[in-house]
Protein backbone atom coordinates (compact mmCIF):
# COMPACT_ATOMS: atom_id res chain seq x y z
CA UNK A 1 0.00 0.00 0.00
CA UNK A 2 2.78 2.38 0.96
CA UNK A 3 4.70 1.30 -2.08
CA UNK A 4 1.78 2.18 -4.31
CA UNK A 5 1.43 5.57 -2.69
CA UNK A 6 5.10 6.34 -3.16
CA UNK A 7 4.95 5.38 -6.80
CA UNK A 8 1.86 7.50 -7.24
CA UNK A 9 3.61 10.51 -5.69
CA UNK A 10 6.61 10.01 -7.92
CA UNK A 11 4.45 9.79 -11.02
CA UNK A 12 2.44 12.87 -9.99
CA UNK A 13 5.61 14.90 -9.38
CA UNK A 14 7.03 13.67 -12.68
CA UNK A 15 3.83 14.76 -14.39
CA UNK A 16 3.93 18.25 -12.88
CA UNK A 17 7.63 18.62 -13.62
CA UNK A 18 7.09 17.68 -17.24
CA UNK A 19 4.12 20.06 -17.46
CA UNK A 20 6.20 22.95 -16.07
CA UNK A 21 9.08 22.09 -18.35
CA UNK A 22 6.80 22.08 -21.38
CA UNK A 23 5.28 25.41 -20.30
CA UNK A 24 8.66 27.10 -19.95
CA UNK A 25 9.86 25.68 -23.27
CA UNK A 26 6.76 27.05 -24.97
CA UNK A 27 7.15 30.44 -23.28
CA UNK A 28 10.74 30.57 -24.45
CA UNK A 29 9.64 29.78 -27.99
CA UNK A 30 7.04 32.54 -27.89
CA UNK A 31 9.42 35.14 -26.47
CA UNK A 32 12.48 34.38 -28.61
CA UNK A 33 12.63 36.43 -31.79
CA UNK A 34 13.20 34.68 -35.08
CA UNK A 35 14.92 37.70 -36.65
CA UNK A 36 18.69 37.36 -36.82
CA UNK A 37 21.06 39.94 -35.35
CA UNK A 38 22.27 40.96 -38.82
CA UNK A 39 18.72 41.63 -39.98
CA UNK A 40 18.02 43.59 -36.82
CA UNK A 41 20.99 45.81 -37.64
CA UNK A 42 19.74 46.28 -41.19
CA UNK A 43 16.31 47.47 -40.09
CA UNK A 44 17.55 50.15 -37.69
CA UNK A 45 15.45 53.20 -38.61
CA UNK A 46 17.17 55.83 -40.70
CA UNK A 47 16.38 59.48 -40.33
CA UNK A 48 16.36 61.09 -43.73
CA UNK A 49 16.26 64.63 -42.39
CA UNK A 50 19.34 66.73 -43.12
CA UNK A 51 19.89 69.97 -41.27
CA UNK A 52 19.79 72.26 -44.29
CA UNK A 53 19.57 75.36 -42.08
CA UNK A 54 22.97 74.62 -40.55
CA UNK A 55 24.45 73.96 -43.97
CA UNK A 56 23.08 77.25 -45.24
CA UNK A 57 24.44 79.03 -42.16
CA UNK A 58 27.89 77.56 -42.84
CA UNK A 59 27.66 78.47 -46.51
CA UNK A 60 26.84 82.07 -45.54
CA UNK A 61 30.09 82.38 -43.56
CA UNK A 62 33.12 83.81 -45.26
CA UNK A 63 36.37 82.34 -46.51
CA UNK A 64 39.21 84.80 -46.67
Amino acid at each position, binding site marked *: *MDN*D*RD*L*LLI*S*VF*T*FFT*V*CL*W*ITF*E*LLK*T*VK*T*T*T*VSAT*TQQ*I*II*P*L*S*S*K*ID*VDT*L*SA*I*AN*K*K*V*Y
Partner: protein
Amino acid sequence: MPFNYKTELKQYRKYYQSIEPIFTKPSSRGYTTVIFSFLAVSLFGWYAIRPTIQTILYLRREIADKTELNKEMEDKISALIEAQAYYQQIEPLLPVVDQALPPQPDAVPFFIQLRNVASASGVLLSTIQTPTIPLVSNSLQKGQATSPPASQPAYIVTIQVRGLYDGVKSFLTNVNNLRRVVTVDSINISPTDTTHVSSQSALPSSRLLQASLELKTYYLTK
Protein backbone atom coordinates in the same frame (compact mmCIF):
# COMPACT_ATOMS: atom_id res chain seq x y z
CA MET B 1 20.43 -25.79 -27.11
CA PRO B 2 16.96 -24.48 -28.15
CA PHE B 3 14.52 -23.15 -25.58
CA ASN B 4 11.69 -25.56 -24.93
CA TYR B 5 8.78 -23.53 -23.63
CA LYS B 6 6.72 -26.61 -22.70
CA THR B 7 9.21 -27.78 -20.13
CA GLU B 8 11.26 -24.72 -19.20
CA LEU B 9 8.42 -22.22 -18.86
CA LYS B 10 7.35 -23.94 -15.67
CA GLN B 11 10.34 -22.69 -13.78
CA TYR B 12 9.32 -19.02 -14.49
CA ARG B 13 5.71 -19.60 -13.62
CA LYS B 14 6.30 -18.82 -9.96
CA TYR B 15 7.23 -15.20 -10.80
CA TYR B 16 4.15 -14.17 -12.74
CA GLN B 17 1.96 -16.23 -10.51
CA SER B 18 3.20 -14.25 -7.52
CA ILE B 19 2.18 -10.96 -9.27
CA GLU B 20 -1.35 -12.13 -9.90
CA PRO B 21 -2.63 -11.73 -6.30
CA ILE B 22 -1.35 -8.16 -6.25
CA PHE B 23 -3.49 -7.17 -9.26
CA THR B 24 -6.52 -8.85 -7.87
CA LYS B 25 -6.70 -6.16 -5.16
CA PRO B 26 -8.89 -3.25 -6.40
CA SER B 27 -6.77 -0.59 -4.66
CA SER B 28 -3.61 -1.82 -6.34
CA ARG B 29 -5.34 -1.94 -9.68
CA GLY B 30 -6.52 1.64 -9.20
CA TYR B 31 -3.09 2.90 -8.16
CA THR B 32 -1.45 1.17 -11.11
CA THR B 33 -3.92 2.70 -13.55
CA VAL B 34 -3.41 6.16 -12.16
CA ILE B 35 0.39 5.85 -12.02
CA PHE B 36 0.68 4.60 -15.56
CA SER B 37 -1.77 7.25 -16.76
CA PHE B 38 0.38 10.01 -15.28
CA LEU B 39 3.55 8.48 -16.70
CA ALA B 40 1.96 8.00 -20.13
CA VAL B 41 0.68 11.60 -20.24
CA SER B 42 4.12 12.86 -19.16
CA LEU B 43 5.89 10.79 -21.77
CA PHE B 44 3.60 11.70 -24.64
CA GLY B 45 3.43 15.28 -23.48
CA TRP B 46 7.19 15.59 -23.69
CA TYR B 47 7.82 13.64 -26.89
CA ALA B 48 4.64 14.35 -28.89
CA ILE B 49 2.62 17.31 -27.61
CA ARG B 50 5.52 19.62 -26.80
CA PRO B 51 7.19 19.52 -30.26
CA THR B 52 3.85 19.99 -31.96
CA ILE B 53 2.83 23.02 -29.91
CA GLN B 54 6.35 24.38 -30.11
CA THR B 55 6.29 24.20 -33.91
CA ILE B 56 2.90 25.92 -34.00
CA LEU B 57 4.07 28.72 -31.72
CA TYR B 58 7.38 29.10 -33.59
CA LEU B 59 5.59 29.44 -36.91
CA ARG B 60 3.13 31.97 -35.50
CA ARG B 61 6.01 33.97 -34.04
CA GLU B 62 7.88 33.78 -37.34
CA ILE B 63 4.88 35.06 -39.26
CA ALA B 64 4.50 37.98 -36.83
CA ASP B 65 8.23 38.76 -37.00
CA LYS B 66 8.34 38.60 -40.79
CA THR B 67 5.28 40.85 -41.08
CA GLU B 68 6.90 43.42 -38.78
CA LEU B 69 10.21 43.03 -40.61
CA ASN B 70 8.53 43.61 -43.94
CA LYS B 71 6.93 46.80 -42.65
CA GLU B 72 10.22 48.09 -41.20
CA MET B 73 12.09 47.25 -44.41
CA GLU B 74 9.53 49.22 -46.43
CA ASP B 75 9.90 52.18 -44.03
CA LYS B 76 13.66 52.02 -44.37
CA ILE B 77 13.51 51.85 -48.17
CA SER B 78 11.23 54.92 -48.16
CA ALA B 79 13.63 56.72 -45.81
CA LEU B 80 16.60 55.82 -48.05
CA ILE B 81 14.81 57.14 -51.15
CA GLU B 82 13.96 60.31 -49.24
CA ALA B 83 17.55 60.64 -48.00
CA GLN B 84 18.87 60.23 -51.52
CA ALA B 85 16.60 63.05 -52.69
CA TYR B 86 17.82 65.26 -49.83
CA TYR B 87 21.40 64.35 -50.62
CA GLN B 88 21.03 65.36 -54.27
CA GLN B 89 19.47 68.60 -53.08
CA ILE B 90 22.36 69.49 -50.76
CA GLU B 91 25.19 68.00 -52.83
CA PRO B 92 26.47 71.43 -54.00
CA LEU B 93 26.75 72.48 -50.35
CA LEU B 94 28.87 69.53 -49.25
CA PRO B 95 32.30 71.11 -49.96
CA VAL B 96 31.28 73.80 -47.47
CA VAL B 97 31.29 71.18 -44.73
CA ASP B 98 34.86 70.22 -45.62
CA GLN B 99 35.85 73.86 -45.43
CA ALA B 100 34.23 74.25 -42.02
CA LEU B 101 35.64 71.03 -40.60
CA PRO B 102 38.48 69.80 -42.80
CA PRO B 103 39.52 66.15 -42.73
CA GLN B 104 43.13 67.26 -42.08
CA PRO B 105 44.45 69.78 -39.54
CA ASP B 106 45.16 72.17 -42.45
CA ALA B 107 47.15 74.59 -40.29
CA VAL B 108 48.79 76.59 -43.06
CA PRO B 109 45.53 77.44 -44.89
CA PHE B 110 44.11 78.49 -41.53
CA PHE B 111 47.07 80.80 -40.87
CA ILE B 112 46.66 82.28 -44.35
CA GLN B 113 43.00 82.93 -43.59
CA LEU B 114 43.94 84.66 -40.32
CA ARG B 115 46.43 86.83 -42.17
CA ASN B 116 43.81 87.71 -44.79
CA VAL B 117 41.27 88.51 -42.07
CA ALA B 118 43.81 90.78 -40.41
CA SER B 119 44.51 92.60 -43.68
CA ALA B 120 40.81 92.91 -44.44
CA SER B 121 40.18 94.30 -40.96
CA GLY B 122 43.05 96.78 -41.07
CA VAL B 123 45.04 95.35 -38.18
CA LEU B 124 48.56 94.07 -37.99
CA LEU B 125 48.98 90.40 -37.27
CA SER B 126 52.20 90.43 -35.30
CA THR B 127 52.45 86.91 -33.86
CA ILE B 128 51.12 83.46 -34.53
CA GLN B 129 52.05 80.69 -32.15
CA THR B 130 50.89 77.15 -32.10
CA PRO B 131 51.96 73.96 -30.37
CA THR B 132 52.75 70.81 -32.34
CA ILE B 133 50.15 70.06 -34.95
CA PRO B 134 49.82 66.65 -36.58
CA LEU B 135 50.23 66.87 -40.34
CA VAL B 136 47.59 64.25 -40.94
CA SER B 137 44.61 63.32 -38.89
CA ASN B 138 45.01 60.29 -36.67
CA SER B 139 42.71 58.06 -38.69
CA LEU B 140 45.11 58.19 -41.64
CA GLN B 141 48.10 57.09 -39.63
CA LYS B 142 48.93 53.43 -39.89
CA GLY B 143 48.40 51.23 -36.90
CA GLN B 144 45.90 53.56 -35.27
CA ALA B 145 42.67 52.22 -33.88
CA THR B 146 39.60 53.16 -35.87
CA SER B 147 37.44 53.88 -32.83
CA PRO B 148 36.10 57.45 -32.70
CA PRO B 149 37.95 59.84 -30.40
CA ALA B 150 36.42 60.92 -27.11
CA SER B 151 36.33 64.55 -28.23
CA GLN B 152 36.70 66.39 -31.49
CA PRO B 153 40.38 66.84 -32.32
CA ALA B 154 41.51 70.44 -32.26
CA TYR B 155 44.59 72.56 -31.88
CA ILE B 156 45.19 75.91 -30.26
CA VAL B 157 46.58 78.92 -32.07
CA THR B 158 47.69 82.00 -30.17
CA ILE B 159 47.79 85.23 -32.15
CA GLN B 160 48.50 88.84 -31.43
CA VAL B 161 47.06 91.65 -33.48
CA ARG B 162 47.60 95.35 -33.22
CA GLY B 163 45.40 98.10 -34.50
CA LEU B 164 42.75 100.66 -33.82
CA TYR B 165 39.63 99.89 -31.86
CA ASP B 166 37.48 99.58 -35.00
CA GLY B 167 40.05 97.36 -36.66
CA VAL B 168 40.32 95.01 -33.68
CA LYS B 169 36.56 94.92 -33.41
CA SER B 170 36.24 94.13 -37.11
CA PHE B 171 38.94 91.46 -36.80
CA LEU B 172 37.08 89.75 -33.97
CA THR B 173 33.82 89.90 -35.90
CA ASN B 174 35.47 88.45 -38.99
CA VAL B 175 37.17 85.68 -37.02
CA ASN B 176 33.80 84.83 -35.57
CA ASN B 177 32.37 84.81 -39.06
CA LEU B 178 35.00 82.49 -40.55
CA ARG B 179 33.66 79.43 -42.30
CA ARG B 180 36.32 77.31 -40.64
CA VAL B 181 35.04 76.35 -37.20
CA VAL B 182 36.97 78.49 -34.71
CA THR B 183 36.28 79.20 -31.09
CA VAL B 184 37.88 81.99 -29.12
CA ASP B 185 39.10 80.45 -25.87
CA SER B 186 40.48 83.64 -24.37
CA ILE B 187 41.05 87.22 -25.35
CA ASN B 188 43.15 89.94 -23.81
CA ILE B 189 43.00 93.50 -25.10
CA SER B 190 45.38 96.12 -23.83
CA PRO B 191 46.69 99.49 -24.97
CA THR B 192 49.89 99.18 -26.90
CA ASP B 193 53.06 99.90 -25.04
CA THR B 194 54.40 103.17 -26.49
CA THR B 195 57.95 101.90 -26.53
CA HIS B 196 56.85 98.87 -28.50
CA VAL B 197 55.14 100.75 -31.31
CA SER B 198 57.06 100.98 -34.49
CA SER B 199 58.20 104.42 -35.40
CA GLN B 200 57.07 103.74 -38.95
CA SER B 201 53.41 103.64 -37.90
CA ALA B 202 51.45 106.73 -38.84
CA LEU B 203 48.87 106.06 -36.12
CA PRO B 204 49.08 107.81 -32.80
CA SER B 205 50.38 105.21 -30.37
CA SER B 206 47.95 106.09 -27.60
CA ARG B 207 44.97 104.91 -29.70
CA LEU B 208 46.46 101.55 -30.66
CA LEU B 209 45.24 98.38 -29.05
CA GLN B 210 46.93 95.05 -28.81
CA ALA B 211 44.74 91.95 -28.69
CA SER B 212 46.02 88.53 -27.74
CA LEU B 213 43.67 85.75 -28.72
CA GLU B 214 43.74 82.08 -28.04
CA LEU B 215 41.83 80.36 -30.81
CA LYS B 216 40.86 76.77 -31.07
CA THR B 217 40.16 75.26 -34.45
CA TYR B 218 38.85 71.83 -35.17
CA TYR B 219 39.30 69.14 -37.77
CA LEU B 220 37.64 65.90 -38.52
CA THR B 221 38.77 62.35 -37.95
CA LYS B 222 36.84 59.60 -39.65
